[in-house]
C-alpha cells in the first residue's frame, strides 16, 4: 500500500465515499445532539454525539470530521429549536478536527491498528482539544457574533468540555478498540 503524506492524511480523500460518510456523520451528530444526551447545564448536554467525529476521523481523517461536526451542529440547531449558536458550531468543528487526528499519529482503524499508546494520545488530545475549542475559540466567536455573555459561555464551556472528555474517553476508546477489531478481523490477508 502506498504511504500517504501527512497533508493527504489531514485533508482526507474527498471521493464519493467520504462525502457520503461525512453526510451520514453530520446527520447522526445532529440527531444525537438533540435526542442522545442528558442536559447538564443551560444549552449544554452530556451528549453521545461526540462519538461521531471519533469514527469519521478514524476512518476518513480530520478534515472530514471537522465538516461532519460543523454541519451536524448547524442541523442540530435547526431541528433542536434552541436558536442558532454558530460560535458553538465552530467550536465543535475545531474539536472534531483534533479528535479526528487519529490517522495522523498512526492509528489506522480501517486496518485494525489501534493500541494502548494510541489510546493514551487520543485521551490527551481530547482534553487539550476541548480546552482549546471551548475555552478559547468559542468565546472569541461569542464576542464577535453575539457580544458579551462570557460568564455563562465559560460555564457552558467548562461543563460541556468536561462531559465531552467523559464521553470521548469512556465511550470513544472502547468504540475504537471495537471498530479496530471489526475491521482488522476482515482484512488479515497478507501480500505474497
Amino acid at each position, binding site marked *: 500500500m502506498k504511504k500517504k503524506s501527512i497533508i493527504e492524511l489531514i485533508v482526507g480523500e474527498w471521493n464519493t465515499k467520504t*462525502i457520503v460518510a461525512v453526510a451520514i456523520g453530520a*446527520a447522526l451528530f445532529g440527531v444525537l445532539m438533540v*435526542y442522545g444526551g442528558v*442536559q447538564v447545564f*443551560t444549552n449544554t448536554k452530556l451528549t453521545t454525539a461526540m462519538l461521531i467525529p471519533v469514527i469519521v476521523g478514524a476512518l476518513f481523517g480530520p478534515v472530514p470530521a471537522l465538516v461532519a461536526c460543523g454541519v451536524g451542529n448547524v442541523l442540530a440547531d*435547526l431541528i433542536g*429549536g*434552541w*436558536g442558532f449558536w454558530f460560535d458553538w458550531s465552530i467550536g465543535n468543528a475545531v474539536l472534531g478536527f483534533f479528535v479526528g487526528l487519529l490517522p495522523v499519529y498512526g492509528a489506522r482503524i480501517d486496518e485494525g491498528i489501534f493500541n494502548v499508546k494510541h489510546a493514551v494520545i487520543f485521551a490527551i488530545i481530547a482534553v487539550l482539544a476541548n480546552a482549546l475549542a471551548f475555552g478559547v475559540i468559542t468565546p472569541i466567536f461569542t464576542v464577535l457574533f453575539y457580544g458579551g455573555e462570557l460568564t*455563562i459561555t465559560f460555564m457552558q464551556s467548562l461543563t460541556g468540555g468536561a462531559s465531552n472528555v467523559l464521553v470521548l474517553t469512556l465511550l470513544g476508546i472502547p468504540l475504537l478498540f471495537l471498530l479496530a477489531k471489526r475491521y482488522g478481523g476482515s482484512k488479515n490477508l497478507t501480500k505474497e
Partner: protein
Amino acid sequence: MSKRIFINIVPGKTFLHKLSGKTKVGLFIVCIVYTIMSFDLRLLAPLMFLSLIAIVSLKPDWKVIIVLFIAIFLMNFFNIFLYWVVKPDIGSEWTGGTSTILYSFSSYYFVSLETLWYLLVRLFKMLTSFTVSMAFILSITPSELASGLHGLGVPYKICTVVSLAFRYIPDISRDYENIKVSMQARGVEMDLRKTPILKRLKQTIYILFPLIITSFDRIGNIANALDLRGYGLKKDRTYYAEVEPTLMDKLFRWSTLALFLFCLAWIVSRNIWEPATKMWFPFEV
C-alpha cells in the same frame, strides 16, 4: 422521537412550497442573521408573526407541530430559568445598569424587572428562531436545499453533504425505532418510567452502537449508487430542482436583498460602533 422528525421528500402544493430553492435558502439565512443580530423585541415580533403565518400557510400536520411547540417551549423555558439561577442580575448589564427589584428571596437571589425583561426577550428570540426554522423545514425538500445552496455559490460537494445529511435524519429515527423494538423483543426493558436513570443510560448505549454501526455500514451502498449515476465526474453540476425564477421568486429575492442590507446597516451601526450589550428596554427610569 419518530413523530418529531419530519421532512418533505416530495414538493408540496402551497405558495411557499412553489418558490425555488435558492429563494428559500437565501431568505432563511438572512432571517437567521436577523434573529441573531439583536435582542430587540420590536425587531423580533414581526418576524415571529410572519413565520407563524408561513407555518399556517404550509398546512402542516398540526398534531405533531403542537406537541413539538410545547416541548421546545418547555426546554427553552428551563434554559432561561438556569440562566437566572446562575446570574440573577444578568438583565441589568444589558439594559443599562439599573436593577429594579420586584421580589427578593435572599441578597443574591432576586427577581428584577430588568432580568425578567431580558430573559423574556431571550425566550422570545429562541422561539422566533425555532418558528423560522420550522417554516424552512416544512417548506423545503433536500434537493431544493442542495440546489439553493449551490445557487448561492457553495461548492457542490458541500451541498451534497448538507442535503444528504438533512435527508438522512428521518432514516436515523426509523433505524432507532427498529433497534429499540428488537432490543425489547430480546427482553431489554426500554420503558422510561420503569428503569432507573443509570440503567437507562447503559441501555441507550445498547441502541447507540448498533445505530452508529448500521448507519456507517450503509455508506458503501449509498456511495456506490451515487458513483453508478456518475456523481463527481465533472468539476460542477446542475440540479433538477433548479428552475427559472418566477415573478414571485424575483419579488422574494428583492425583499431578501433589502432585508440583508437592513441587517448589514444594523450590525454596523448598532453592534460594531456601539457596545453590543445594549437592548431596547421600555421601562427605563
